[in-house]
């Protein structure tokens, strides 16, 4: 990398370029930047003129972009958003563990493990195949309807279980991709050193596999964070439902923008972090001459 004689040799520039991700100005230099600025300005002007001159704009502006609506609904929505964050954080822990178990089951070799493999495959097919909102509605209203003693009635609990089940399906696939990306020679080498199959998995394969899939894992967590809004199906007042309440009370949509801003405040930093990790990972691999 170093000594290429271009802007990349400056570590500070490089750090910022990673942060900015997609904002690349190819034909560099002041001219390139000027063109980028100009085309951005022209593009935005066209979009803004098209939107604001449209027949429905005054009504849309009044119902969606009323600053009074947005700011007055914000405090309640922010309070309700705490629940989204809590659900997200708790589910994330369980998903990471549960999905890893599924992924390991699925990559067990040999005919003896066929039933476990089959189970893992069926699970991740079902978990990814049924819409999350259905899983949550089925569990949240269905499980307590059984009226079994000891079965919790809490809707937040069942919504959490639903999210964990669904997202574990996705995350297990991510783990599996990571496990399969580790070259078989790694396991062969580990076994030849006297490690048991489990030890090889635990000490050699998984550490490499997981490190490789951190960016796609984070990607799934961005999805999870957004999907906490589905808990509203069960009547739980989290950020989206609070926005619904405000919207229905005033027949305006400013509250939706307030809720969107809160979600974005969490998901965008996560997205940037993911991009940064991907870039760092790529650089590391290039530097070390691509291990495995």
């Amino acid at each position, binding site marked *: 990398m170093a000594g290429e004689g271009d802007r990349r040799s400056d570590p500070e*520039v490089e750090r910022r370029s990673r942060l900015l991700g997609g904002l690349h100005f190819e034909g*560099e230099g002041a001219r390139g930047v000027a063109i980028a600025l100009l085309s951005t300005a022209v593009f*935005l002007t066209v979009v*803004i003129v098209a939107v604001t001159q449209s027949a429905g*704009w*005054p009504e849309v502006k009044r119902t969606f972009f009323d600053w009074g609506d947005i700011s007055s609904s914000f405090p309640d929505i922010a309070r309700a958003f705490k629940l989204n964050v809590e659900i997200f954080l708790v589910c994330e822990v369980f998903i990471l563990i549960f999905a890893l178990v599924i992924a390991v089951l699925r990559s067990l070799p040999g005919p003896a493990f066929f039933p476990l493999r089959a189970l893992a495959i069926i699970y991740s097919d079902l978990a990814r195949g049924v819409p999350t909102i259905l899983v949550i*509605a089925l569990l949240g209203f269905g499980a307590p309807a059984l009226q079994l003693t000891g079965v919790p009635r809490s809707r937040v609990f069942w919504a959490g279980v639903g999210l964990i089940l669904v997202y574990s399906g996705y995350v297990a696939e991510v783990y599996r991709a990571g496990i399969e990306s580790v070259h078989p020679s790694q396991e062969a080498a580990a076994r030849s050193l006297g490690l048991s199959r489990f030890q090889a998995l635990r000490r050699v394969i998984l550490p490499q596999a997981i490190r490789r899939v951190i960016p796609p894992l984070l990607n799934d967590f961005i999805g999870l964070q957004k999907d906490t809004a589905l808990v509203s*199906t069960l009547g739980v*007042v989290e950020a989206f439902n609070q926005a619904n309440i405000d919207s229905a*009370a005033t027949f305006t949509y400013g509250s939706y923008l307030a809720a969107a801003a809160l979600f974005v405040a969490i998901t965008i930093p996560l997205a940037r972090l993911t991009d940064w990790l991907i870039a760092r990972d790529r650089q590391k691999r290039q530097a070390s001459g691509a291990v495995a």
Partner: protein
Amino acid sequence: MRKLGYLALALLVALLAAACGSTKKSSSGSTSTAAVNCSNKNDLNLKTTDQLTIGTDNPAFPPWFGGTPHKPWQVSDPNSGQGYESAVAYAVAKQLGFDKSQVVWKHVPFANSYAPGPKPFDFDINQISFTPARAKVVDFSDSYYDVNQSVVVNKGTPIASVTTVAGLKPYDLGAQLGTTSYQFIKDTIKPTKQPSVFPSNTGAVQALKNKQIDGLVVDLPTAFYVTAVEVPNSKVLGQFPAEPGGEHFGMVFEKGNSLRTCVNQALTELRSNGTLKQLQQKWLAKATGAPILK
């Protein structure tokens, strides 16, 4: 060099902000305040000529709608003319000069009834309460029903012995999204726990059945339907004293629709000739006589 990247970003944000702030373009729906002629239905402002298009949500629940369900309609059928809202809608249609075959019902989910842009209906009748905030966005007809809120509970549960509004405070209460019941819980009952809000009647009723909530706050006629049909072993604990000024249901119109004037004339006529009272006795008779919670 990268600084210019930020500059472009800042420019983008600034332009977007300007877009939200600017535009003084005044082209709000030209409200023709000129005298509206209601005597000839050809002069009415309709979506489709010679046809009155009325919106309501599906399923359409008793006692607001009745009859056996047909094709797209679940639980009951607005076309039946049975149930209070269906009957009122047909009575209004008759006043305006439409016969039964010229009335077309359209499935309009509650959230769509106030979505900006041209409305797919002439008016929407769906137990929508008038509030001043809502009236800034859509137009409401005059009242076709003055409504009281009430609370439904499971028999034999601790909440079932409560007799006062204050006594409801410690319980898990729920309401349906879009009703004023939620606001009522928040402002009047002020419970210690966050009340639940369900996107549909179905979810709210299921949660009450499952005892996931202790009490469901709904309008009184709906409360009687819930106890009679939807939740076995439940009862109407009581109704709440009417708010100052009262609460009423109104039909929803696109802002500035001149048809509203004619519908209001029809409602005035139906009120003075006793039709509204008669229809209430026919369809909502059960919805009286619940104890008032002090």
